[in-house]
């Protein structure tokens, strides 16, 4: 033990750049692999991948996976799993369709009701996991079957649609362009989207700089300046390029705004609030967390409730996107969501994982789906490749952990 302490101290004195990369290879590696995968498909598809139309599709196709991955990350960090999210997603969409299309309720209260329904479903499952200590695998496996069945039942086995236009806009709508009148030149360009992109870029850089200042004030600017600079340039370039591409199509999709807001919110909650910290402690060592006065049961319960809420939201977005609720909606989503979290660096034993990682993981899966589809690769091969990528990501994780 004493020796180990020594080696860490020795490490601190070694070249800080190399050490830093070595210590953070996992986090940067993930972002790097996403970029590499994107470049690869951009090249292979002769530039189709990053065409504005395709990029918009990519966002729309993956939004519900990303949104559910946010909740799933918390569940996995807390040391659990939720297999029911796909079914809950489909069921909530079905309820919305029946209420709006068949029974003629206004879409706004139904949307609200469906979110509550999602939360209640999550709470019900969380109740058995948290207070009765039934393994989450079993509870949510049961939930998966139950809600799949319920969706089939209320849809009577048929697709129900179409939805009223305002409801569809949730998925297929775009943020209106405030400068549209000025842009009467015929060339379609959404200035609002670009401006929002620039503002967000500026904000991200501002917060990064502020954080670094704060770290320096406490004498722990761990990250070498070169990497800090490089990271910011890369992020800024990415954001600007992205918003430019979006602007040259229809602008920013409404879903993107919702998704981005949720990512920021969840990233903040997990990294900077007491409840986020407690979830990590709960997953890291439940007994120690409980003996430190953390109400571990209640916290587990809330994580499942939150997951249900997000699954409900994802269900609404998915139904709005397809413009129908089908009995097959949500089928297999749980696998993509869970895979996104593990590709994103979550640990199956709990206590480890970052929201941003889950988002990157979701896009790794999304870009591969999209790219391989464009290339016309058969669904059989696609499945195999995705499976191998998941295994490879987790293998590398374990490999570097053992080496460290």
């Amino acid at each position, binding site marked *: 033990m004493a020796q180990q302490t020594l080696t*860490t101290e020795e490490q601190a004195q070694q070249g800080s750049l190399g050490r830093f990369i070595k210590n953070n290879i996992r986090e940067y590696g993930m972002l790097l692999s996403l970029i590499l995968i994107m470049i690869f498909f951009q090249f292979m598809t002769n530039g189709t991948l990053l065409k504005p139309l395709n990029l918009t599709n990519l966002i729309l196709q993956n939004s519900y996976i990303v949104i559910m991955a946010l909740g799933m990350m918390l569940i996995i960090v807390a040391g659990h799993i939720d297999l029911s999210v796909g079914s809950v997603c489909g069921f909530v969409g079905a309820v919305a369709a029946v209420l709006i299309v068949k029974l003629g309720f206004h879409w706004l209260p139904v949307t609200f009701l469906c979110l509550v329904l999602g939360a209640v479903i999550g709470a019900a499952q969380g109740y058995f996991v948290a207070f009765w200590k039934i393994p989450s695998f079993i509870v949510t496996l049961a939930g998966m079957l139950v809600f799949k069945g319920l969706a089939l039942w209320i849809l009577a086995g048929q697709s129900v649609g179409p939805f009223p236009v305002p409801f569809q806009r949730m998925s297929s709508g775009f943020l209106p362009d405030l400068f549209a009148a000025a842009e009467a030149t015929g060339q379609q360009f959404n200035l609002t989207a670009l401006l929002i992109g620039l503002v967000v870029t500026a904000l991200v850089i501002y917060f990064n700089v502020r954080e670094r200042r704060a770290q320096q004030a406490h004498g722990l600017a761990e990250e070498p300046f070169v990497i800090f600079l490089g990271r910011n340039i890369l992020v800024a370039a990415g954001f600007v390029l992205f918003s430019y591409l979006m602007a040259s199509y229809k602008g920013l999709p409404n879903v993107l705004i919702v998704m981005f807001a949720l990512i920021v919110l969840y990233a903040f909650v997990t990294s900077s609030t007491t409840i986020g910290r407690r979830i*990590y*402690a709960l997953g890291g060592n439940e007994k120690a967390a409980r003996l430190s006065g953390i109400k571990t049961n209640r916290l587990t319960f809330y994580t499942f409730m939150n997951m249900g809420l997000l699954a409900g939201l994802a269900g609404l977005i998915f139904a709005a996107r397809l413009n129908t609720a089908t009995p097959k909606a949500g089928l297999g989503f749980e696998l993509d969501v869970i895979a996104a979290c593990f590709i994103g660096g979550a640990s199956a034993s709990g206590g480890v994982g970052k929201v941003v990682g889950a988002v990157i993981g979701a896009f790794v899966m999304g870009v591969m789906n999209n790219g391989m589809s464009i290339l016309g690769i058969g669904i059989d091969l696609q499945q195999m490749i995705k499976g191998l990528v998941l295994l490879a990501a987790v293998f590398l994780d374990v490999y570097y952990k053992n080496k460290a």
Partner: protein
Amino acid sequence: MSLAAQQQAPAAAETAILEMRGISKTFPGVKALSNVNLTVRAGEIHAVVGENGAGKSTLMKVLSGVYPHGEYEGDIYFQGRLCRFRDIADSEKAGIVIIHQELALVPLLSIAENIFLGNEPAKNGIIDWNAAFARTRALLRKVGLKEPPTTLITDLGVGKQQLVEIAKALAKEVKLLILDEPTASLNEGDSDALLALLKEFQGQGISSILISHKLNEILKVADTITVLRDGATVDRLDCRAERIDEGRIIKSMVGRELADRYPPRHPRIGQPIFEVRNWIVYHKEHADRQMIKGIDFHVRKGEVVGIAGLMGSGRTELAMSIFGRSYGQKISGQVFLHGKEIDVSTIQKAMDAGLAYVTEDRKNFGLVLIDDIKRNITLANLEGVSRNTVIDDGQELKVANKFRRDLNIRCSSVFQQTVNLSGGNQQKVVLSKWLFSGPEILILDEPTRGIDVGAKYEIYTIINRLAEEGKGIVVISSEMPELLGISDRIYVMNEGRMVGEMPTSEASQEKIMQAIMTSWGS
């Protein structure tokens, strides 16, 4: 020394079934056994005694192959042959069977299935159940059990489970039976039956090694007693040759000198601030088993109170049940702080009232090992470093660094993962966590277990400082010299009761042991 002469003599005079010569075993940072010799004569009951941590269990693990050949130094001769056991299966093949304190039975399998687990009478992988049942019946008769072989283990009492373990050992054609604290959880009737059984086996030529804290039982059956202390053989008593009494054994067990291992203490003790009255707790799983049987105790302002006792005496159960009912069920009794009754029904409430409990098992209950020092220190009081539930990173860092300095936590930075710290530094992190929660009463459960001498001294100094600040401190420890060295007053606990209370000035290891030994079954 006469010790060496004593050890050689019996080996020459009578045939020894087992000779362990010069056994040493080192764990990272700790020498658990140092040049230990153990000679067991054929057909005798040999008792091994010593305080907790003296090295008894380690010695038995070396003997039974849990620590395989190569992980220890020294030689083991069994029936005259040099043995190098690779694992437990290897030592069992030779005829050495160990029965651990925690029984190794599968609760939801039947007696017969357990007895032949891993040793099934089978042909080509197909078990011959008729043969198994027949042999089980014969074995159960030998240990005096009348239950049918199909009975599930979980339906048996602890005493009968112990007998099944012994039957299992007999099934392996045991020549040397090792029993680690076999009577710790048995009542007197069951204990006597078990001891009688050992005597019976002795008649059939089976030797046994008995590890026990209950000296009265040892004196009833043992032929020879080996005393271990601090990982070394300190005495070998021949009960057949001379008359041995408990006082003689205790003297050997505790006879170490108190050196300057404890910081000087200048207590300024005030009025009682913490009091527990008629505390009763039942076992967390067995609702009919009373673990804490109506305990009263109190702590004064600025006082360090020690609770002595053997393993299984209920000290941890007492502490944890007071700390937010984190152990047990059907808990009753009252807790007072500053004369007012306080609610300790949940951990949060106990903490709010001003209690803190530092667990004996810091790795499993104390730390989130994958998290860094900083996050562990603030875990029990996140409100202290946050505003409107948003954690102030700078404030958190300041707090962590303050405790790093104050408690001298040796680390590269407070961002170091706690899993990489030494035991002493881990313990300081756990202490920091609880100090940051601002308690008035601090219960420390085995605060120096597995920590080297230097770090122990630092922990003692911290305890002294806290007492000087006017906090009430309760220290639970199995190391009697430690309690004598740091506390102002000592309670002695045994079988869920307080069986003694003495100011440290009047206390001694002999008195504590006496209080425990005279209280068995009372």
